[in-house]
């Protein structure tokens, strides 16, 4: 805490164009506040000549006439910023200024109400003054940081993020669990919309990464633990042995000539393919135990599937001309200090065997779309191929969501197939074809092909025929006709689910996921956030998407982490502060923090990690002992404002309403209402809070105890809170409070929650009027003096 300096407050009325004097009796207000406690100067700024004012005010400040300012009147956000920076240059801390806009509080040029408006203005200025007295100078906090970053997952998304970060001259560690980078895209045959070879795109990005030395790639590795916070993550990584020295091996292949292990190619029926196997060992294996990495040759060094080696065999070791084979290499554990992390752990195909009615795994000629990718050419006897869309997607028994890519994938596969086998007839069974935007072109291209029939219907079951073909019976929903078709090959357009690696990293990093298991983010305000500061998510770990969006989101995520990759990280000083002498270790702050910012200190108290904190103040709202205060909207400052509301300026039958406004949506809505000149009644007083979750029940109790007849709590709409769950927090607490009011024989309607969007100005004004009417019917608050 800074040294307490007795506040000397300057109050400046901005009466630009007689803005204020038309509404209130300035001549009465100025002398009244000149005498107020701690006020050392109270002036009306002369209209016009802002420049002159500026020098004058700075001069007065430098003469020591005041050490904080309360501005009364209308200032645009730009004007506020200019005043703050100009005065900061002169030495006044920007957090020692307070702004009191009377218009926002419903004070307009109403001649008839001038008297009443003056009284309300008096209260409003008192409220702001009470707060100004309690303001504290704050300086940005500096946390030590580092310019290194860790990317988890080396698929397409991860590689693009790595390239972007390397270009920004950051040190990048890439953690990949396979023996090489490339991910799922490396397994694909073609990419839409250009129907190009995906290895081309991968090679392009890999070339970029190969050129720089600031990228360190760790394959066969997984993140096992993380400590610390943004700027200072300590990431523990377990690296399985490769048994081949990455520096020395040049992939000459001599070892493969001597390897005694010969395994048959893994197949599963006539269309069998090399599926992404479950363990590293299998994945890296092709025919013998020592083999090139998988799925791409980056890094180049070979890898040995050690469990497949015959006992005591060291043939490859002897054969290697570069002495690169390290058969006794142990696993290693590495620790990286990084400023931020990026998670691009990607997707897995949905297990189509679960969509039992389509017989995947039961009939050899039912294959998945991923397996179809790996078919080079189809056997000649194949004349008819069926594609079933939404196999598992958009189905509440399987995946509730649309997997986004399957339509385009099927169209692409049909195009490729028809190119090689023009005589093949294709049936596409679909509910909707979803190729938004320019993807329509792909759809039209396939529509124009001969021998491709789109059937808007899904089969219920697939049955083998005696001749081995598959029978499909559907109702063509356009004509209502029954169709009995048969195909030689059936491709199921299976969906995308979060990869196993996504689940794994979510557990290690404690990243919240949505009901579908993907990382949740707040679109469009914080699109790549993971709800854990300093950790960004990109690509398909965020939801099903095509390669285009996967690359874009990963690059966006890379851009987003840049502020964390500095030697020192600057944190806005409006952080929560814990008063440990009050804290009872109940940990509600920890439970309710949407960003997991709280940790235990050595004595079991909550401790906020300033790097992680997003400064919503939810902890302050939740603390039953008022032991948490968010700086610059401290519980004392808010309480002082609440207490300064004096309902007695209105007649007893006129209800007084105190409204807490969320700074993100509700406050702009109200400000806009004032700009539009909508009627904001004099009965209402607004107090703005960083997030509605910051409103502690004690503040509401204060408002009622000091005589407000109603308390309105205006937060964001559900699911739109910038801090994820502010409005849910206040809802739960509000319900507790209402129950208590009920037991006190007070009408629980005196506390009301509402959700506003940023442009709900008219709705807000209507709500206020109807609520005031309701409060009028309820009669005055029994605590109102």
């Amino acid at each position, binding site marked *: 805490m800074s040294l307490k300096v007795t506040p000397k407050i300057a109050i400046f009325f901005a009466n630009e164009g007689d803005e204020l004097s038309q509404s209130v009796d300035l001549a009465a207000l100025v002398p009244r506040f000149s005498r107020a406690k701690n006020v050392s100067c109270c002036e009306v700024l002369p209209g016009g000549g802002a420049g002159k004012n500026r020098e004058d005010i700075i001069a007065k400040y430098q003469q020591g006439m005041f050490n904080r300012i309360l501005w009364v009147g209308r200032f645009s956000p730009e004007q506020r910023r200019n005043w703050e920076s100009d005065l900061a240059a002169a030495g006044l801390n920007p957090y020692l200024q307070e702004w009191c806009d009377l218009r926002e509080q419903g004070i307009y040029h109403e001649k008839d109400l001038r008297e009443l408006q003056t009284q309300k203005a008096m209260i409003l200025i008192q409220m702001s003054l009470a707060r100004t007295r309690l303001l504290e100078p704050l300086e940005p906090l500096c946390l030590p940081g580092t310019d290194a970053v860790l990317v988890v997952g080396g698929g397409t998304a991860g590689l693009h993020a790595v390239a972007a970060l390397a270009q920004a001259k950051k040190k990048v560690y890439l953690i990949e669990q396979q023996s090489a980078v490339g991910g799922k895209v490396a397994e694909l045959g073609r990419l839409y919309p250009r129907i190009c070879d995906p290895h081309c795109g991968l090679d392009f990005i890999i070339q970029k990464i190969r050129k720089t030395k600031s990228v360190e790639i760790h394959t066969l590795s997984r993140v096992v633990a993380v400590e610390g916070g943004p700027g200072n993550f300590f990431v523990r990584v377990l690296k399985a042995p490769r048994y081949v020295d990455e520096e020395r091996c040049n992939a000459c292949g001599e070892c493969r000539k001597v390897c005694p292990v010969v395994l048959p190619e893994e197949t599963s029926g006539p269309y069998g393919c090399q599926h992404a196997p479950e363990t590293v060992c299998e994945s890296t294996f092709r025919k013998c135990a020592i083999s090139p990495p998988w799925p791409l040759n980056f890094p180049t060094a070979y890898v040995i599937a050690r469990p497949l080696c015959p006992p005591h065999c060291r043939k490859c070791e002897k054969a290697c001309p570069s002495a690169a084979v390290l058969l006794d290499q142990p696993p290693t554990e590495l620790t990286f200090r990084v400023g931020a992390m990026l998670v691009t752990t990607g997707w897995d195909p949905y297990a189509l065997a679960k969509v*039992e009615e389509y*017989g995947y795994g*039961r009939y050899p000629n039912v294959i998945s779309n991923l397996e179809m990718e790996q078919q080079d050419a189809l056997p000649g006897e194949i004349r008819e191929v069926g594609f079933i869309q939404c196999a598992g997607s958009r189905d509440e028994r399987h995946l509730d969501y649309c997997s986004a890519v399957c339509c385009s994938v099927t169209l692409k596969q049909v195009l490729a197939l028809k190119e090689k086998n023009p005589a093949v007839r294709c049936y596409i069974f679909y509910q909707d074809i979803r190729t938004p935007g320019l993807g329509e072109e792909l759809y039209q291209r396939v529509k124009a092909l001969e021998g491709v029939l789109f059937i808007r219907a899904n089969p219920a079951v697939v*049955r*083998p025929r*005696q001749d081995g073909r598959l029978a499909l019976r559907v109702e063509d929903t356009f004509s209502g006709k029954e169709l009995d078709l048969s195909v030689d090959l059936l491709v199921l357009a299976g969906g995308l689910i979060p990869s196993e690696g996504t689940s794994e990293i979510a557990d290690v990093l404690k990243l919240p996921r949505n009901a579908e298991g993907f990382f949740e983010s707040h679109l469009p305000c914080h699109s790549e956030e993971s709800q854990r500061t300093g950790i960004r998510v990109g690509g398909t770990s965020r939801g099903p998407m095509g390669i285009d969006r996967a690359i874009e989101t990963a690059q966006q995520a890379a851009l987003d982490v840049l502020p964390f990759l500095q030697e020192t990280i600057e944190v806005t000083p409006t952080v929560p502060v814990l008063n440990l002498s009050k804290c009872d270790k109940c940990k509600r702050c920890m439970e309710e923090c949407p960003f997991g910012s709280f940790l235990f200190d050595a004595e079991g108290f909550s401790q906020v990690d300033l790097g992680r904190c997003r400064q919503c103040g939810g902890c302050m709202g939740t603390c039953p002992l008022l032991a948490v205060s968010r700086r610059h909207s401290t519980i004392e400052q808010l309480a002082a404002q609440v207490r300064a509301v004096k309902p007695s300026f209105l007649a007893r039958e006129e209800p007084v309403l105190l409204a807490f406004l969320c700074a993100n949506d509700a406050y702009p809505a109200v400000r806009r209402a004032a700009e539009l000149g909508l009627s904001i009644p004099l009965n209402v007083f607004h107090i703005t809070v960083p997030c509605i979750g910051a409103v502690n029940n004690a503040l509401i109790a204060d408002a009622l105890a000091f005589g407000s007849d109603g308390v309105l709590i205006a937060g964001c709409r559900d699911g739109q809170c910038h801090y994820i769950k502010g409005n849910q927090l206040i809802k739960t607490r509000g319900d507790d409070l209402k129950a208590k009011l009920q037991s006190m024989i007070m009408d629980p309607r005196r506390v009301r929650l509402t959700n506003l969007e940023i442009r709900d100005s008219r709705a807000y004004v209507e709500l206020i009027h109807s609520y005031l009417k309701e409060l009028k019917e309820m009669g005055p608050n029994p605590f109102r003096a």
Partner: protein
Amino acid sequence: MKYLYYPGCSLKGTARDFEESFKAIAPDLGIEIEEPGDWGCCGATVAKSLSKELAERLPLKTLEQAAKANRELLTLCPNCYLNHQQALDRLRKDETAKASPSRFPDVKQLLDVLGFDLGPEEIKRRLVCSLAGIKVLPYYGCLTVRPFPPGGTESRENPQIMEKLIALTGAKPLSFPDKVDCCGGGLLLTKEKVALKLAGRILKVARRYAPDCLVVACPLCHFMLDGKQNAIERELGEKIRIPVLYITQLLGLALGVDHIRLGINRLITSPRGLLGKFTRN
């Protein structure tokens, strides 16, 4: 294992061989049953087509009996099982609203009891004869797996529990793609032609696999595939001649139970060929 046994109308009539074979093997498998004298019809599919009230009322009587006896309820007929299970779900839903633990015991169908309460291991221990050499095609029909699959966990599209039971006897279970298709039994007395068409489709596919017999767990399926096989043959204009056994009869054979006690003499499509193979072994 002791159950309150609910027979249902068919089991006393056209499916008396089902009941007989079940009662004949129950002691050998360690299943005890208690049969109330005054059970009433569950309403089949008829009650729910006519009146909601009637459909909801009819199964209650037996559920009350089960609650009173504090025994799980066992039904052989899948249709009776479905009606009782649905009634039980309704009761429990009401109960959860009242937040009291249920006083109504579970309802089980034959495959629940054989496949899960008892379990293949336990059954295998008790079998005495091997039926090796015969090929058996299991047919589930609809209501044994839909909407409540055996054990609550079986697949509704590709259940395996009958296959497992058949394999226990030494017989070879064949994989039948149409095993959960509808036999049309519900339409026999209203749309006979359609019913025969559906059952005919199943028998035709079945014949492709050249089984020694079909095995079922439903009285209606049995009636359609066995009792109406003649009529189906006339419709199709070709011979089928596949005997259709209840799963209980097949298990009974493996338990060494006498044919007469298993009601095998009551089959309409002659099982002589099958039994010949069996006795030869």
